[in-house]
C-alpha cells in the first residue's frame, strides 16, 4: 500500500479527526450499531482507528487473513453485504465532512471496497 495516500490525507492527525465522527455515525445507525457496542467503548474506538488507518492506506499489519479473523465472529452473527454498504456509506460521509478531496476519497473507498470478500468471509 502506498504511504503517499495516507500522507496526502493528513496521516495520523486525519485518523484522529475522523475516528469520533466515524464511530458516532456507526453507533447512531440502528442497522449496524449492535456490532459496535461494547462495555469497553474505548477499545472499540481503537479498533475503528485501525479500520481508518487501513482504509487511508496507512501503516498497518493487516492481511486478508487477519481481516477475515477479525470479522468472523460478526459474520456468524449475520454480517452481510447491506451492513458492508452501510459502513462504506459512513466512511464516505466522514471523508466528506472532513473535506477530503474527491480524488483522495475515491482511493480510500477503493481500498475499503477491495476488502469485501475478506470482511464477509466469502
Amino acid at each position, binding site marked *: 500500500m502506498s504511504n503517499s495516500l495516507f500522507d496526502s490525507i493528513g496521516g495520523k492527525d486525519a485518523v484522529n479527526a475522523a475516528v469520533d465522527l466515524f464511530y*458516532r455515525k456507526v*453507533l*447512531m445507525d440502528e442497522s449496524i450499531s449492535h456490532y459496535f*457496542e461494547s*462495555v*469497553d467503548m*474505548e*477499545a472499540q474506538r481503537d479498533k475503528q482507528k485501525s479500520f481508518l488507518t487501513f482504509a487511508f492506506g496507512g501503516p498497518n499489519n493487516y492481511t486478508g487473513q487477519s481481516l477475515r479473523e477479525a470479522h468472523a465472529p460478526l459474520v456468524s452473527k449475520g454480517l452481510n453485504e447491506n451492513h458492508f454498504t452501510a459502513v462504506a456509506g459512513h466512511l464516505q460521509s466522514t471523508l466528506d465532512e472532513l473535506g477530503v478531496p474527491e480524488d483522495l476519497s475515491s482511493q480510500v473507498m477503493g481500498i475499503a471496497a477491495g476488502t469485501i470478500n475478506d470482511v464477509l468471509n466469502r
Partner: protein
Amino acid sequence: MPNIYFNSQKIPFKVGQSILDALIEFDFKPVYSCKKGVCQTCMLKSDSSQITQSQMEVKDTLKVQGYFLPCQCYPDSDISVISPCSEDITYDMQVSDKKLLTQDIVQLKLVFTSDNRVFIRAGQFINLKVQNDILRSYSVANTPEKDGYIELHIQKVPDGKMSAWCFEHANIGSALSMIGPFGKCIYLSDFKNDDLVLIGTGTGLAPLIGIINQALSNKHKGKITLFHGSRHFNGLYLHQTLKKLADTHENFYYKPCLSGEIPQTLADENINNGRVNKVAMMQLNKQKGDYKNIRFYLCGHPEMVKNMQKMAYLSGAILSKINADPFEYTAY
C-alpha cells in the same frame, strides 16, 4: 481437538469455546461471576502467548505475572494454565461493622487482619471471597486510607450466594478474604475544576458516594451532580444524607429518580419520575452544557450503564472522561 492443561490435568476443548466454559463443562468448578470480562473473579495464570487478548482489562502488575481472564480467552491450540497463587493477591480481612441500610441493602465495614500495603481508592472494587469458592465484586464506598476500613453496600439478590452470606452469616469478626483492588472509576485531584455527573442505580450509589465525598473533601471547584435511580423509594437508600449534603455544599446537586410511580406522600421530595438515564439526558440537554467538558461516572445496572455511556458519547462526551462500572452478573 486441542487441549487445555489446567494445573497439568488435560481437558479437550472446542475451538471457539472460552477456557472458562471448558472448565465449567468438564466440572472443574472454576470460580467466576460475570463471564463478561468485568469482575476479574475468574483470573488464572499462564505463560502462553494466546492470552494477550484476554489481558486487556488486567492491571499491569498482574499482567506481567501472566494473569488473564479465562472467560475472555478463546485459544485455538494447546495451552497450559494454572490457578492463581493466592499469596500473590489475596488479603485476609474481617468484618468490623454491619448495619442494615434498608431491608434489602446491608452496609459492611471490613478491616485487614494483618499489616498490608494495599492502596485502595474510593470507587474501585474489590473481590470478596468466602467459603473458598464464592468470589464476587463489590465497590468501595469510602476512602479507606483516611477511614482505616473499607465500606461496602450490598444489595440482596434472590438466591444469591454472596449476598446471602453478607445478610445471614456475616457478623462482627467474621473472616473473609479479598483480592484487588480493581477498576478505574476513581477521582483524581486533577479533576478539581471539571463538572462531574454521576449516575447510578441501586447500590451503584456505593462507588459514587465514595467519589463524591472524596471530591468534596478535596474542595472540588466544578459542579457535582448525582442522579440516583431506583424503582421504589426504599431503594433511594441515602436520600436523607444526600439531601443534607446538597444543602450544605453549594456545588453539589442531588437528583433522586424513581422509575415506578411516585406516591402522593413524597410530593414534597423533588423526586424525578422516570428511568435515571432518561432523566439525566433530559436535564443535561436542557442545561445545554457542553458534553465535552463533563466527566461521567456510571455505575450499577449493566443496561443503564451501557445505554448512558453510548448516549453521552453520541452527545459529544469524550470516552476517556466516561468512567463506567457495570455491575455485570451471569446466570448460574
